[in-house]
């Protein structure tokens, strides 16, 4: 069983179940062979609709994608109405249902989209992430699989609220670097950016300081160095991008990523640094000690392309 429709799921049928099991649970079950070509076609249509909403799109599978609307909207409510329109358009144009989750980062949006299916629409407004997450089972967090769920159960953690009460050090000891990620996930923090495609569509670098830094001059020096590193990497890989992002993490692990679009594609250190410093000035609460600083460039130019005759 590769997939099961929502009505079939009501009988307890799910993907990866044997055909025999499935028919036992629902004798009237209609079984169809897969039609990958059709799925691809529909997928392309849906992705086309999404691309019209925002060019910053990351397709993660045939039927799942992240959209970054930061550049498209200046108010939260506009995002909601835009996405409602997308849902209607998908339904009207090709008769498919789509579930949408709207949140301040990829993790929140993903969990939200899973809340209600089919044809769900779940909005987690900024500031309500914690309240939204706390009652959920840890297994709802993408990246926490059955094995981790069991391990967490061993330390009496079943909900996200439970998880949020474990210290970072303890999680790190038990799960390594991953534990640090879980610590942030439990707080609704996810600073992965939406990037196109599967291959590198952004180049970024960051530095975690051994001692928190609060000196402006020192931080901007680091910013310059990071900009240089990103620039060299871009040039090495032959990319030019027009979105520059800066990531700051405070001593208390609050992490912010801000990005800005330039009016041209660039791979030059100075362009990146100028944009980065501007973003940094906006992001940094002067004098607050920082634990991490990062610079990234994304939204790469499609390579200038010699077009071909259709023969």
């Amino acid at each position, binding site marked *: 069983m590769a997939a099961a429709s929502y009505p079939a799921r009501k009988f307890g049928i799910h993907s990866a179940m044997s055909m025999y099991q499935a028919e036992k649970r629902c004798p009237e079950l209609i079984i169809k062979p897969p039609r990958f070509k059709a799925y691809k076609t529909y997928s392309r249509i849906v992705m086309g609709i999404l691309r019209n909403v925002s060019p910053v799109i990351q397709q993660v599978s045939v039927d799942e994608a992240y959209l970054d609307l930061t550049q498209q909207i200046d108010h939260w409510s506009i995002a909601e109405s835009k996405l409602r329109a997308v849902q209607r358009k998908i339904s009207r144009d090709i008769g498919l249902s789509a579930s949408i989750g709207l949140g301040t980062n990829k993790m929140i949006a993903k969990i939200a989209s899973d809340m209600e299916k089919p044809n769900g629409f779940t909005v987690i407004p900024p500031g309500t992430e914690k309240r939204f997450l706390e009652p959920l089972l840890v297994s709802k967090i993408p990246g926490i699989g059955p094995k981790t769920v069991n391990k967490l159960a061993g330390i009496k953690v079943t909900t996200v609220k439970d998880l949020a009460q474990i210290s970072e050090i303890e999680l790190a000891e038990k799960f390594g670097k991953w534990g640090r990620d879980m610590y942030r996930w439990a707080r609704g923090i996810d600073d992965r950016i939406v990037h196109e495609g599967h291959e590198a569509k952004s180049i970024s670098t960051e530095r975690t300081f051994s001692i928190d830094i609060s000196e402006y001059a020192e931080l901007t020096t680091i910013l310059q160095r990071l900009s240089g590193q990103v620039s060299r990497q871009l040039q090495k890989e032959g990319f*030019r991008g027009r979105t520059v992002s800066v990531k700051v993490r405070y001593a208390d692990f609050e992490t912010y990523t801000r990005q800005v679009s330039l009016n*041209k*594609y660039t*791979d*030059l250190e100075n362009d990146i640094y100028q944009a980065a410093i501007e973003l940094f000035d906006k992001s940094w609460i002067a004098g607050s000690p920082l634990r991490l600083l990062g610079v990234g460039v994304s939204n790469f*130019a*499609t*390579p*200038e*392309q*010699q*077009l*071909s*005759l*259709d*023969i």
Partner: protein
Amino acid sequence: MKISTSKTELQSALQKLSKATPVRSTLPILNSVLFVAENEGVLLRTTDLEITIIVPLEASLEDTGSAAVPLHTLLEITNELPETRITISIDAQNRVELSTEMGVYDLMGKPADEFPAIPDVDKQKTLSMATNVMRDIIDNTSFAVSKDELKPALTGVLFQFNEQNLTSVATDGHRLVRYIRTDYQTDAFSGDIVVPRKFLGLLGNFLSEEDNIDISLGDKHLIARIGKNTIITRLIDERFPDYDTVIPRDNEKRLTVERETILGAVRRVSIFSNKSTHQVALRIIDEKVTITTEDPEKASRAQENVSASYSGDDLVIGYNANYLKDILAHIKVEKIIIDLKTPISAGLFYPEEQANNSDLTMLLMPIRLND
């Protein structure tokens, strides 16, 4: 076999013949020239298995026979000799001796029967063509032929024979040339053949000597006879794509420009373009074409303005300068017309005034610009 000839005769024949020998081959015999000395005369032959060249050698015959002789050694020594008589003797063991008044040179040949036979060409249809027609076709089309061996059909020029005219087409997928001669008709053959680029290039070397070439068409081969020389080529056994559907009919933005002026500008500006993309941009506004390029890697840029007449909305379009120069250089008229539509669709290039009896149209696909 024993013959004697002059340095000039031998050199001229070998130079023509050397064009067919392959640069690299797994078959060593192909690096040889086959001598066939018979009472009717001496014929020399080379082949790369695709193309076979047969050239007669003016020589006095003392003894008939045949053998394959290493071509490059023979050509080298011939080049180094002053004008003199050369006597070539080959014995039954294929030992070759060249004797001249300067000295004697020996080398080893190979038996004639190891040399590939002349291909059998059956069901021949024979037609004749003025050399200038063939030359014009070669000059106008062969630059646009693809070098991509993965698309065999595009590695040759399409000839479409019919009772009204002769249409020749070449494309590499980025540009396309269609050249029609309305002054050529034949009722001997009607249909399409795809002729390899290498053959056409080679044929060009033979054309100056005669007014006419005789062409015999078989199912798989073409034989061209120019005077006493014969070139046989295998035809490309692939269907040429339907080129007609890609020729735009609705390019309504029309640019008319002096060819030398715009070609000169593109040549100068492109010196400063990126060495891998060769990208230049044409900004066409009102009666002016601004040609620009920029190479961020080398921090170089260039710009020139060319005046032109233009009807249509403003347009910015990018091209590979090499392709653009090729096209502009091959439309040898004072003024050319460029019909455009969008920055991502094919532009149509042709002479403001077509030459008598011909119709020349070129297509060039742009480079998609990203900012």
